């Protein structure tokens, strides 16, 4: 039971933190249509986080709610992958972060469809429809930037250097993942095949022999998460229980 709760929180935290990151683009997108796109993706992710937190809160009982889980847990209690908390950087970095995450999430949710926990399977089924859009949109952008101008190529190459080291963590199981019946290592091949396919079209090279950073799944984060939470949780920390 505990492992299912932790695993649900892991899924929820990933969606919430990346949703929060993307939402900062609101009003700052390079063109209006893409501003709308990234904020729509943000909304989808926060929606997924809500379904997952609600389910975790039901299992936890004791007055836990989706809000208490999002707003009142500390940095070390958050289980999101390090990738999701990385800064927005420029458009290329945001795009590539989304592409890596959507690729992972696409295969992850596909595998969850067959999970023994029917609530998780239902949330995955629902979310997968949205992730499909995110994956297609971000794949097209990776290709557009990689195979675009000299500047766009330079920027996306820099993003690859910056972010690739956070992708290995997806496939290294945390204890609660294994206990919850998940097999992240089994998603690795599909992930690599998809990334390679898109990178080839984008004229980008897959980095080799990169040391992979880990820790997020077990609450050991990069310095960025604290800053995200201080902003995200500000209202509930300053005015406990405030509603609008």
């Amino acid at each position, binding site marked *: 039971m505990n492992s299912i709760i932790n695993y649900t929180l892991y899924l929820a935290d990933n969606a919430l933190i990346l949703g929060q990151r993307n939402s900062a683009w609101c009003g700052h997108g390079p063109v209006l249509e893409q501003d709308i796109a990234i904020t*729509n993706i943000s909304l989808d992710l926060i929606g*997924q986080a809500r379904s997952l937190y609600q389910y975790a809160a039901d299992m936890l009982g004791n007055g836990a709610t989706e809000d208490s889980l999002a707003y009142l847990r500390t940095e070390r209690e958050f289980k999101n992958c390090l990738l999701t908390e990385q800064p927005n950087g420029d458009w290329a970095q945001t795009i590539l972060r989304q592409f890596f995450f959507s690729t992972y999430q696409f295969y992850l949710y596909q595998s969850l469809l067959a999970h023994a926990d*029917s609530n998780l*399977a239902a949330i995955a*089924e629902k979310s997968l*429809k949205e992730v499909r859009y995110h994956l297609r949109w971000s794949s*097209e952008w990776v290709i557009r930037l990689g195979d675009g101008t000299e500047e766009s190529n330079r920027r996306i190459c820099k993003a690859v250097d910056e972010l690739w080291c956070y992708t290995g963590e997806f496939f290294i199981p945390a204890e609660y993942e294994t206990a919850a019946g998940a097999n992240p290592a089994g998603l690795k091949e599909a992930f690599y095949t998809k990334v390679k396919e898109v990178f080839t*079209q984008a004229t980008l090279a897959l980095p080799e022999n990169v040391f992979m950073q880990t820790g997020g799944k077990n609450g050991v984060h990069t310095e960025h998460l604290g800053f995200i939470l201080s902003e995200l949780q500000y209202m509930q920390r300053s005015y406990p229980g405030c509603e609008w």
Partner: protein
Amino acid sequence: MNKTTDNNILWSYLEEVYDPEIPVLSIVDMGIVRDIERNGQELTVTITPTYTGCPAMDMIALSIRMELMAKGFTTVIIKNSISPAWTTDWMTEAGREKLKAYGIAPPNPRQQACKDELFAPHEAVQCPHCNSWHTSRISEFGSTACKALYQCIDCKEPFDYFKCH
């Protein structure tokens, strides 16, 4: 009053509840309502959210409650059911016509669209104003999660397309 009539009346009450973002479309037209169960004066309404993050869902749940309370039901329970996932195929024919009359192109049948292929030719969508098929997609994402933005090349009007899902 027999059970079927009773149930038809309850469904007709829900036809008075509209989507706040698309005020011509009732939640029955949208295909959001799965089931209504009556137990004396207590009603349980089961709904399926369109998109997980759709901010209209909270408003819709509240509107259902208000509508049924106005009809004299004091206890209204709203249940969320997310599996099977909502699809635009559940939208009624009447709903599609209302959307079009309102200026939003109704969703194409699912089997014709929703492809994974990259840079695929955009779905052909009919202009709700002049009925031309000569239209182009401006943005895959639109004013709400459920819509994409198109423009008609013949009459030049931009319009929302309720994308297939």
